[in-house]
């Protein structure tokens, strides 16, 4: 079941190569299926090397190629490698609280952390799906972002920099949760600047900022 596809299909494919498609729709469907799998495998290899790769283990929560499709989970695609490395260290040391990320970061060695960070930096971001736009909320969020001077660290397009992550196109609920975590001290910015900024934000500000950012197109958005 789970891994059902298996051996029998491999045999069938061998049969197809020899016999051709006219043996019936079932064989033709099997041939089309295997062709699609081969195409996907080629793309997988081109993206991150031959199967299996360590980044396979991040897909369940962060999506294929680091593109989450759920506003509760952060997108990793296009985040700077230095930022990702720093976060994995923070999870391991408890400066950033997350039981799943803690156990994951504690099992990774330095080389694996560097490898994963470099991999996700290379992936093109894509705004998290199913974002509904509320123009009033977006305007309010943009205003708050201007007032706080977020672009000085996160970049003019909010696409991030070496120490500050990309915010544009980031998952909406995740972003609100992080601002609250900074505000409440559950997540600590090494320089404390994010903690100070977040403490000045009202609940309504946080909601608006997260909404604006989730809707903002980031550089490379929509790229394959």
């Amino acid at each position: 079941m789970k891994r059902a596809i298996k051996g029998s299909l491999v045999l069938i494919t061998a049969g197809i190569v020899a016999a051709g498609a006219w043996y019936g729709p079932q064989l033709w469907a099997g041939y089309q299926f295997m062709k699609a799998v081969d195409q996907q495998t080629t793309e997988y290899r081109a993206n991150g090397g031959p199967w299996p790769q360590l980044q396979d283990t991040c897909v369940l929560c962060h999506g294929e190629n680091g593109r989450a499709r759920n506003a509760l989970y952060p997108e990793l695609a296009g985040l700077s490698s230095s930022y990702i490395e720093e976060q994995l260290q923070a999870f391991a040391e408890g400066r950033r609280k997350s039981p799943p990320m803690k156990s994951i970061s504690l099992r990774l060695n330095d080389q694996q952390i560097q490898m994963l960070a470099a991999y996700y930096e290379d992936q093109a971001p894509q705004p998290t799906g199913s974002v509904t736009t509320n123009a009033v909320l977006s305007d309010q969020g943009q205003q708050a972002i201007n007032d706080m001077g977020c672009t000085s660290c996160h970049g003019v397009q909010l696409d991030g920099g070496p120490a500050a992550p990309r915010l544009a196109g980031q998952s909406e609920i995740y972003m609100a949760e992080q601002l609250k975590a900074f505000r409440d001290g559950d997540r600590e910015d090494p320089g404390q600047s994010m903690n100070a900024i977040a403490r000045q934000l009202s609940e309504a500000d946080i909601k608006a900022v997260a909404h604006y950012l989730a809707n903002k197109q980031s550089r490379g958005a929509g790229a394959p």
Partner: protein
Amino acid sequence: MNKGNTKKSLTARRQFLTQTLAGGALAGGMALTGKAGAFSISSGNSKSHQGPSDILDVVIIGAGLAGLTAARDLKRAGCESFVVLEARNRVGGRTYKHDLGNGAVSEAGGQWIGPGQTAIADLARQLNIDTFDQYYQGKSTFLAGDARYAEEITGGGASIDHRLATVLNEMARSVPHETPWEAPNAAELDKLSVADWISQQDVSLSNIDQVSLNSSTSLTFGTPPAGISLLHYLSWINTADCNLASLERIKDGAQETRIVGGSQIISLKMAEALEDNLKLSCPVRKIVNWDKDIVEILTDQGVVKARQVIVALNPALCNQIRFEPALPAGRAELQRRWPAHAPMRKTVHVYPRPFWRDEGLNGQIAPTEGPLIWAYDNSPPDGSIGVIAAFVKPGQLPHEPGDAERVLSDIYARALGEAARHPTQFHDHDWGRVDPWSLTCIHPIPPGFWTQWGEYLRPPVGRLIWSGTETSEIWAGAMDGAVRSGQKAALNALQELAKERRTT
């Protein structure tokens, strides 16, 4: 010792243990009851025992299958001086059901019983709870890109590349499930992930084998092959009678049997019998003086004192509790590092009928990419309504119910036909997001973990007896392991109490 002997002795040990555990609680109860005057356990509550009346004999933390089984066995042994503390406002832990109306349910958590999982099967029978076969007859559907392919899979499943499975099964014989870190070549096996090992083999897996191994390992072990220690992988094959196929398939495998009314009903029935000995919505925050005669357990509903504490939680949850004094370094480190990253997210689509069965389909859908890992028939035993349940990738399916339902319905319509496009109900349970009281479904043990921290998993620390499926000698991680661990914890607690009373 040759491999054959190792296996034989393991099997013998299992049989012995099963018999011991099955009969043990009752026998222990009789013994203690017989000497009630001497031990003051069966005579009931702490009031009849010397000492302050607010001190309980046992506190059990966690009202999942492990904690409730421990409570049930304590009671059967005549011990009434205990309380079960549960953080949630419900029992059942990682078993949970959605009520679909008219008595029908679908499963949101652990649900299957397989061959060799006798403890959970026996418990269900004792509680007058029926079981039925997981539906698998017909063709499974596979999707890749725009392609759709349907095929009947013998026994509802198949193993990975036969040559690799044969090698793994053979290797598993010398890796005891109970103590993988004591395998003869444990250090060597624990250095590698399953992915590392596969890469070293002469056998190169076909593209489709790679994809399906990613999916099946994610479902059974909580993460793809790159995240699992080879030693841990082998230890689970070992518990499945050294047969990887038996771990993965439906017929004659670990997904063979379901529980009528949903698996949570086992916990609900056990909880019913406990009456006032169960406190819901009572998270434990701190445990003080675990190294002294009387332990204090600080909860959101006040302080409870006890002579013995059964901690029926997974180690990652134990790590959320503060201990005073601090736990010994080895145990503390085991908890801190315990894998908590396989929470699982499950969805349910309900239809007027299991219409796919008429088309010769079994309802199973396995795409090679996208948000769905595996969908399967989760209809009630009489098939009066149709239910397709699914394991999904939490971060790859929108969280809004309407969006999540539509994305999956589109996939189901491609696989099963247009009738799948309009479910009458949709349910979604993302275990990692619903509440903080499970954290993880199973434990994807990474390379290097067992050989370094495994020895600290079970030994009690002061007055703390560790329970929960993770501590089971057989089928750790399964419902069966939870029941076994609860039975054993009750025996341990009774033994400690008896010892104490002999010396006082």
